[in-house]
């Protein structure tokens, strides 16, 4: 299936783009991360420490082990620092 993958803050900077369209068979977020990290060194570096990465599936916060299900948009970003 095709997914829109979005990056924010330093993840966006390290990967070098704010979003990309990915063709994937991944069943979970973690499998998608493995696929992305294998693409090139920038993805690998940005996604190397998953303790510093948060995930949203279709704009809802999700775990790394969440199934991708019918999600159309997956976002990766650092812990939030609003307010």
């Amino acid at each position, binding site marked *: 299936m095709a997914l829109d993958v*979005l990056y*924010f*803050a*330093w993840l966006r900077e390290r990967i070098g783009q704010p979003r990309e369209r990915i063709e994937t068979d991944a069943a979970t977020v973690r499998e998608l991360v493995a696929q992305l990290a294998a693409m090139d060194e920038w993805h690998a570096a940005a996604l190397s420490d998953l303790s510093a990465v948060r995930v*949203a599936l279709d*704009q*809802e*916060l999700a775990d790394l082990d969440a199934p991708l299900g019918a999600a159309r948009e997956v*976002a990766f*970003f*650092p*812990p*939030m*620092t*609003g*307010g």
Partner: protein
Amino acid sequence: MVARLQRDAFDIGEELRDFGAGAGAIVSFSGLVRAEGGRLVALEIEHYPGMTEKAMTAYGEAAAERFGLRDWRIIHRHGRLEAGETIMMVATAARHRRAAFDGAEYLMDWLKSRAPFWKREIGPAGPGAWVEARAEDEDALARW
């Protein structure tokens, strides 16, 4: 019941005018860009268009239900904000002060750690580090 994301400055006095009519207690919080003794010139605030607005509304509604708020308001800015500028505010209105204070603190704890905003420091020499999440902000969520 207002959640608003915007680039422009807002006036807290205007936002509080007629806010919470009929309530007995109104609490407001506002967060400002600290200059940190000159180390910081500005903050750049990034957000996730779509998700950020939804999160602001969801936390406002959750606080209203949980604390019986008569009214609530969340305003958060994005883009470049100079030192001294107001970044955001929350306001809550309730019958008694306990609920108004609790509602405002609950909203702040959620916004700080769960709403999709990221801050980057801009110093005299240009863009610097992304602000790291503070462990105490995460801990603050545990009490609710």
